[in-house]
């Protein structure tokens, strides 16, 4: 029977450690792309989900911006351009929302047992989370471009121009890595999906309110400033807001550095949690 024929041995035996590492890396890329293809197909077939998730941040900006703008004191927020001020907050809000909804497929895989099938395959433990991350960054970049376009129509001009927009996407991607890893870890750690939604719902809003998303840091009570300072959201917002309102500043670089650190920590913690929950304690790959 054809299906039983041995496959052609496509990989020559690795002659050195370098070659073996190269092969492991290309296999890892293949795994991540294959899994991302799965997420991508699913998204395209869920048209309504696609439509609403793309439009959501733009709609938030319009309703929130238009409504709250008048209640805001330009002295406190430091600019008369409230839409411009809010843009970073809305983008961050979207990232947190995506983090929660982005962990859902992992939750389903776990509960329906497909995760076991994946774990019985010779794939790297990190590729599942990383594929989610790659997918989310792509989806979210589209959302961000759309909301920036809407903001442009409403008169918001990004002070640093197209290059600044690119850096905004980078900052968003870094924060996404932290948020995706954290919520994925939560999805794997909880006993069942009800617990996940309870915790995710409980955490999301305070995470936003304990940042400078809606109110600048200097307008907060002292204790809240302390909390906001250890919240990675604050740094993403600071970087994006500076790029939108002020222009290039050293603050942007330092914020990106903090975001990189937070992403590395969350990814390490997320992968570690994933390994623990999937009973993988032995092998690195």
């Amino acid at each position, binding site marked *: 029977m054809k299906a039983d024929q041995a496959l052609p041995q496509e990989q020559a035996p690795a002659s050195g450690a370098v070659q073996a590492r190269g092969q492991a890396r290309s296999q890892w890329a*293949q795994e991540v792309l*294959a899994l991302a293809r799965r997420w991508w197909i699913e998204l395209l077939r869920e048209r309504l989900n696609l439509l609403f998730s793309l439009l959501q941040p733009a709609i938030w900006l319009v309703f929130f911006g238009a409504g709250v703008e008048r209640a805001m004191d330009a002295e406190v927020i430091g600019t008369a351009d409230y839409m411009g001020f809010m843009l970073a907050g809305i983008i961050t809000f979207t990232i947190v929302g995506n983090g929660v909804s982005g962990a859902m497929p992992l939750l389903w895989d776990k509960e329906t047992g497909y995760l076991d099938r994946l774990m019985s395959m010779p794939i790297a433990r990190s590729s599942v989370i990383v594929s989610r991350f790659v997918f989310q960054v792509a989806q979210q970049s589209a959302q961000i471009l759309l909301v920036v376009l809407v903001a442009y129509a409403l008169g918001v001009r990004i002070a640093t121009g197209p290059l600044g927009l690119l850096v905004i996407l980078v900052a968003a991607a870094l924060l996404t890595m932290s948020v995706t890893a954290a919520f994925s870890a939560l999805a794997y750690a909880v006993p069942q999906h009800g617990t996940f939604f309870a915790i995710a719902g409980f955490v999301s809003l305070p995470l936003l309110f304990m940042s400078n998303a809606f109110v600048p840091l200097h307008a907060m009570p002292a204790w809240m400033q302390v909390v906001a300072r250890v919240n990675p959201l604050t740094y993403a917002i600071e970087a994006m807001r500076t790029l939108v309102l002020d222009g290039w500043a050293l603050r942007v670089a330092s914020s990106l550095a903090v975001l990189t650190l937070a992403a590395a920590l969350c990814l390490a913690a997320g992968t570690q949690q994933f390994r623990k929950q999937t009973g993988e304690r032995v092998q690195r790959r």
Partner: protein
Amino acid sequence: MSAVIEAVGLRKVFGDQVAVAALDLRIERGEVFGLLGPNGAGKTTTIRMLTTLLAPTAGVARVCGFDVATHPSEVRRRIGYVMQTVAYRGLLSGRECVEIEASLYHLPRRDVRRRAHEVLDAVGLLPHADRRWTTYSGGMKKRLDLACGLLHAPEVLVLDEPSLGLDVQSRHKVWEYVRDRQAGGATILLATNYLDEADRLCNRVAIIDHGGVVVSGSPAELKRSVSADVMQVATGDPERLRQVITPEPWVKEIVGGDSGDLHVYVEDASVALPAVMRLALAQDIKLERVTYSQPSLDDVFLLHTGRELREVEVAS
């Protein structure tokens, strides 16, 4: 012969519950090996350890010579695991599911399409390959999982109750699949609750209960070890009948079934049958029904676990 799967003193404890006590297994190359036992006997836990999904608490298990605890990646490359529950595949088509998994097994990109085509053909799903998974029947979903188990042409196939809940036609397709794979040289570990399935497909079986192997051997050997014949005697007073016939020389063993029937293991039913009736008549014990049969794996199971498999299933 070389053992493809070997377990020595395999043990798994969850909290204070012992799921697998001290399990020994030896499965040779090219065999179809059946793992029989009621739900909760430790079949799935054993399989999850052999497929590297669970780390053993104690003991050693090797698949194709690789220790599942220290070389899980090597083991995963060599096994095709088909889970008991059908894998959820959302909005994808059958072909997309298979192609994605082919990439996860690191097949070179140029081979992914061809290989997906081959395995879909092997399970007869080619005509439905481009339909969405959600439109598949239960049997088709199962066959898709079975196809995915073949993608990397594994040396070992691990099938956890592959025909559970399927209709007769789909069960026959599963059996065909197992026979084809064996003919192709694969070693197959098959967990099942259906003794007829084990009888048909397996070269050897192990009956496990309470987390350990109770007895193992070929189905023919096991049935021979039970006895030549089994009589099922239904009576209103099984206890008295048991007392009356126990001393008789032709009785090898008497086991009470859960339904109240006595299962009397005898050398030759044609001699024992009239003797039972004569004794019952003399002692005024009313017999409701007396039948006899060649021993089945059901009888083997009953003899070694003291329970009928079907009763246990219903109870659990």
